[in-house]
């Protein structure tokens, strides 16, 4: 744990916990695991989430769906923008955690943090444009008014990228909740600390409890419970281990989950984002109404 030998003051170390339903519990299993920096130095103990924690998180996420999807798109945009404000306020802390976790220079860590904050702002601005861009007026051949609107898929399980601890996490999480879904995130196994700090940001940003739930622990242990849970509607496998992805997808098929496949290699999250991740967790509802006198 980093300490400053030239200072008489002993720092206050943070306890890194899970984030479920707006609260910060330890794992119900009582387990934790040591997290080390890229240089091998001990950073902190993280909670090692369990199957029961996954189920608690899914329950919290399900409970939050109606409320979150029921707020106005404008309101969701404001809440997400508020998250960006809080991120900005903790910019230095995130940069330090990213530097420690990923072993990049302080300058690079600051760039990645700035990109993460900007990414969040980008998605915050999407909430009230998704329906315009993905929806449609359908010129049907008959006396009907027909239109199609995107709606959130529901509860999305997210296996966060394993390498890019903050920008990668933000890039997969923000589109889920910008699209009015709720999320259960399994943080990067080796680099979970920025995710826990993000949870602290979310908890102080007017985001209703349960909209985002973040678990730390062993991805390969937690992912199967997420993939097989009938109350999970979609699964993002970006952070899955290569040898587990096929099994997870097979399991997800039992309830016809929507999937974001595991990419062959972790994407370069500094690249400009596209619509794909927003669209991946939207359903299209087509409505028909007769027109007549």
């Amino acid at each position, binding site marked *: 744990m980093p300490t400053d030998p030239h200072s008489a003051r002993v720092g206050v170390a943070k306890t890194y916990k899970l984030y479920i339903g707006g609260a910060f519990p330890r794992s119900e299993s009582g387990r934790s695991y040591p997290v080390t920096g890229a240089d091998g130095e001990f950073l902190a103990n993280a909670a090692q989430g369990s199957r029961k924690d996954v189920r608690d998180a899914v329950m919290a996420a399900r409970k939050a769906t109606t409320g979150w999807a029921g707020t106005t798109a404008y309101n969701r945009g404001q809440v997400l923008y508020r998250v960006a404000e809080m991120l900005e306020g903790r910019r230095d802390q995130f940069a330090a955690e990213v530097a420690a976790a990923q072993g990049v220079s302080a300058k690079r860590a600051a760039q990645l943090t700035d990109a993460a904050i900007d990414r969040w702002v980008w998605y915050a601005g999407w909430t009230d444009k998704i329906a315009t861009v*993905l929806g449609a007026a*359908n010129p049907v051949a008959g006396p009907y008014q*027909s239109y199609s609107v995107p709606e959130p898929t529901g509860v999305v399980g997210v296996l966060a990228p394993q390498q890019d601890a903050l920008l990668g996490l933000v890039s997969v999480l923000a589109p889920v909740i910008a699209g009015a879904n709720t999320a259960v995130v399994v943080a990067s196994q080796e680099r979970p600390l920025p995710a826990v700090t993000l949870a602290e940001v979310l908890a102080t940003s007017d985001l209703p409890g349960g909209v985002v739930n973040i678990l730390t622990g062993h991805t390969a242990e937690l992912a199967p419970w997420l993939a097989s849970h009938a109350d999970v509607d979609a699964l993002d496998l970006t952070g899955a281990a290569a040898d587990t992805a096929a*099994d*997870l*997808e*097979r399991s997800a*098929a039992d309830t*016809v989950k929507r999937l974001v496949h595991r990419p062959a290699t972790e994407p370069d999250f500094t690249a400009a984002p596209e619509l794909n991740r927003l669209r991946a967790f939207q359903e299209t509802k087509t409505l*028909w109404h007769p027109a007549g006198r």
Partner: protein
Amino acid sequence: MAAWEYAPAPESAATGRLQPSYRMFLGGEFVDGSGEPLKTLNPATEEVLAEVSTANPSDIDDAVAAARNAYGQVWGPMPGVERAKYLFRIARMMAERSRELAVLETLDNGKPIRESRDTDVPLAGAHFFYHAGWADKLGYAGYGPDPKPLGVVGSVIPWNFPLLMAAWKIAPALAAGNTIVLKPAETTPLTALVLAEICQQAGLPPGVVNVLPGAGDVGAALVGHPGLDKVAFTGSTDVGKQIQRTLAGTGRGLTLELGGKAANIVYDDAALDQAVEGVVNGIFFNQGHVCCAGSRLLVQESVAEELVELLQARISTLRIGDPLDKNTDVGAINSRAQLEKITELTAAGETEGATRWTSPCPVPQRGLFFPPTLFTGVEQSMRIAREEIFGPVLSVLTFRTPDEAVAKANDTRYGLSAGIWTEKGSRMLWTAQRLRAGVVWENTFNRFDPTAPFGGYKESGFGREGGRAGLEAYLAH
């Protein structure tokens, strides 16, 4: 009510140009398949219509290779404006042969000629016409300025709308620049093979469209073929799950249009006469062999008794019989297996305590028929309220408040479609917003159009067919 008498008005079966045998379409030629030929029956008589060649695994290899070659050499590189003209041509030729296609569809499937003539065939042609126009405008579809096709598509379709489902798969795949191997249903292969002939007559380059008849084993072998880039399936939720498992870890594209158990919600202020027509259409259209059929009627308690009486009176006038008769409302059940499934599920409805009412209409002695049936006193937990019957059987449930209506409507693993009947606009919109279903019909039911995306929520599948949204499944982006 005075009974209206009808004289028989049969469409001539000869219009269908039925051939004694049909061959599969591979690489632009009609060839003998290496599988065991199947016999397709007329469900209205259970007589053999024709013998149809089927594919074996080596035929599937050949078809995928032909599609791959056509994709790489001809169709992929072809400018969209040229692809479009082939699709327009196909749409026009389908219109020219529309009466033939309608009769053949009715012979093979058992659906009333009125429906094949007025719904299936025109909509199938419209799908080609609509998607033809997209072929050179894909950059405007919202998937980037220059979206690319995926490659070779494998598609398996059901027996309830044989030609229409073939069109739903082929038209968008081709418009986006893909090539396709299509497996029609075992019991209804004929119109897809005539569509293949139309493709041939339209000069479509060999290998762009391949049609391989066969049973479920051919479908399973096709969707698992490693030479495909994308799989599109319409059919049961159970088979859809198997396909999703088969494709697990491959990264190949997949869209699934699966089962449904749609709620048709009738509020107390609905225009009941219109609602009756909509409810009847919702469940008895195509003998109820419709994934989006309105198989659960949710009626507000205060009008339940009145609505059920009106429904019984209206259903009693439905004419069940010769599908080729233009006055027939309800045709034949497509197969003996399906008839047995409907029989089994309706028996379960009685066993579980629901009250059964059967239309007194005369039912033909010969052929596969099931009279329109209505269950009252249905509980949420009963199989007839939970399982897809895929037949002319309506389950009636009641509710007191809008919240209860929505909760009951959404209490299903499916989410394909729903109907709402009310004269109050705000209640209509409130309800429509809360239904977890991909298509919501308001004061109408069972409307389809190539411009209107169709597809499910939850275990009714994912991906859309039709509209701009429907192109997503066939483009790399």
